């Protein structure tokens, strides 16, 4: 005999998803709600977005967030690429150490690294602020970027680079004309991921921002300590959209990457034909 209706496992999965996404949906809905008390639906408005956009503090902190994200991403990518190049010729022992240090930056609690850096900077009398946050974000971002880059390096044969050297390219030219183009898809994906992680980080930014440098998520956290305003919902929705967009781009690039190493260049080629 067959039972009617959805199976328990379907129901359970649905419940989990509702619990996960309902709060997010609520944030979006209330960012568009006229009711400032966040109690009832009183009609559609973009007022809160306008307010958030005109808020001097929000604009300043968004600027800091972007600055931190771009800087930490750039540094992380350089570390991941140079690390990957080194890794290929490293001994097994050195590789094991490198892997352990990479994964520990992801596995260990972020608060530990944040606190550690906070104590270190105070000990060395290095001022907190944008620079300190960037260093903090590089700790985890470089680990994620490294893992993505390693995956690309692992599928890349050195033969192409040997061929370039054989054809008369010196080491820099080989890197510039062969290695870098082959790494491009991985660089784009890792970069977008780093930007995302940096943009919505709270813990490290909170610890290392000091008194002047506040990122947007830290500001939001501060704002809801007093009371949740519709403006916070608008900022939250905005951040979410930015994050979603970068992930979408990263996903598209990974999905549409043609076979071989063409990557984005491959996409361009198809468009040109």
């Amino acid at each position: 005999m067959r039972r009617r209706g959805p199976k328990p496992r379907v129901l359970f999965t649905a419940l989990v998803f509702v619990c996960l996404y309902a709060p997010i949906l609520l944030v979006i809905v209330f960012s568009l709600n006229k009711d400032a008390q966040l109690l009832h639906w009183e009609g559609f408005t973009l007022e809160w977005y306008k307010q958030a956009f005109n808020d001097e503090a929000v604009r300043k902190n968004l600027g800091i967030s972007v600055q931190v994200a771009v800087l930490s991403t750039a540094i992380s990518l350089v570390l991941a690429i140079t690390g990957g190049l080194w890794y290929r010729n490293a001994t097994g022992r050195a590789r094991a150490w490198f892997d352990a240090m990479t994964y520990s930056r992801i596995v260990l609690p972020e608060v530990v690294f944040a606190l550690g850096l906070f104590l270190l900077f105070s000990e060395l009398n290095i001022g907190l602020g944008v620079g300190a946050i960037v260093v903090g974000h590089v700790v985890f971002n470089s680990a994620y970027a490294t893992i993505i880059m390693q995956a690309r390096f692992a599928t890349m044969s050195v033969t192409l680079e040997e061929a370039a050297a054989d054809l008369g390219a010196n080491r820099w030219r080989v890197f510039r004309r062969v290695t870098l183009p082959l790494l491009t898809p991985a660089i784009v994906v890792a970069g977008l991921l780093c930007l995302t992680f940096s943009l919505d980080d709270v813990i490290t930014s909170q610890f290392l921002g000091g008194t002047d440098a506040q990122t947007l998520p830290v500001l939001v956290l501060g704002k809801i300590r007093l009371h949740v305003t519709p403006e916070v919902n608008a900022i939250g929705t905005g951040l979410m959209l930015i994050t979603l967009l970068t992930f979408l781009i990263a996903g598209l690039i990974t999905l549409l990457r043609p076979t071989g190493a063409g990557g984005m260049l491959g996409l361009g080629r198809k468009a040109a034909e």
Partner: protein
Amino acid sequence: MSTAIALRDLRKVYGDVAAVDRVDVEIADGEFFSLIGPSGCGKTTTLRMIAGLVDPTEGVIEVHGRDVTTLRPHKRPVNTVFQQYALFPHLSIFDNVAFGLQERKVGKAEIATRVGEMLELVDLTGRGSAKPAQLSGGQQQRVALARALVLEPEVLLLDEPLGALDLKLRKQLQLQLKRIQHEVGITFVYVTHDQEEAFSMSDRVAIMRGGLIEQLGTPRDVYQRPATEFVADFVGVSNRRPGRVTSVEADGRYAVEVPGLGTIPSAGVPGLSEGQPVALIVRPESVLVAPEGAGRTSVSAQVLDVAFMGPHISCVVETPDGVSMTLIADGHETLAAGDRCDIGWAHAATWVLPLDAEAAAEAAEIDEPLEV
């Protein structure tokens, strides 16, 4: 003729294994020279040392008299055609071929002309704007060739360039390679594990084993006058009959006593001494069915197995003393398993070499680790 490449006591050691051991060769200008041997024999390592992609542990590499041992790959007057072509996937065919010229800062107009000429030489005119992935294996192989030849290297190194292609295409490209080599007149150093391929193109071949050159000579030399059992087995199927030298003739020929066959006069490796255990080898195509006559060895045999190959049949027969031999006969020969027949071969078709059972076993082995 002047020397294009000289390898002097070249050695490469990985850990405590010598991948290449005291290789000492001179390759003449314009020669088509092949390094052959089973995988792991050191042939690819030798080629990569000439290209500068592997640093030798000891020894000297000279190109046209100039010591290039410590030069980086991009400074060497040699270019390589890699096994899997190694075309740059993100560049067009034109840019792949132009790569080396661009590195040399050759002018745009000249690059266009020279790349055009090269694509014509390898029959790929008009495919310049395609990407490597859009070409067939054979076409990609020709691009790899064009990319190396356009730089007019003093020596072209080829690392199993036809390895990834099917048999028919390989045969075609072998002819094309030989034609191109004639046209450009450049020294080719060719690495392959396929002796037939090497024979059909090469002026000389070196058979390598365990990092050493076991024999170096013309294809005819190594096939008909192999120095060792390993070479005899590697370059083709051989019937081997153990025996003993009974006398050394004044002209350097030997009389060999082979159990079951009597005493046979035969040429052989120089320097064998009386009483030495040897192997008498006869190639299957030299073994004929029912030939009687002067200057021949004849023996009756029973057919064990017959394989029809098209133009010919390959038979395994057993001589009365229980030794099996392989022979190749015309495709119209109607032998069947169980038949009795007389077989024989001309005395001129035999060759005697020192007995070495271990080497023969090694040559027959195929599953060896890939070389580094």
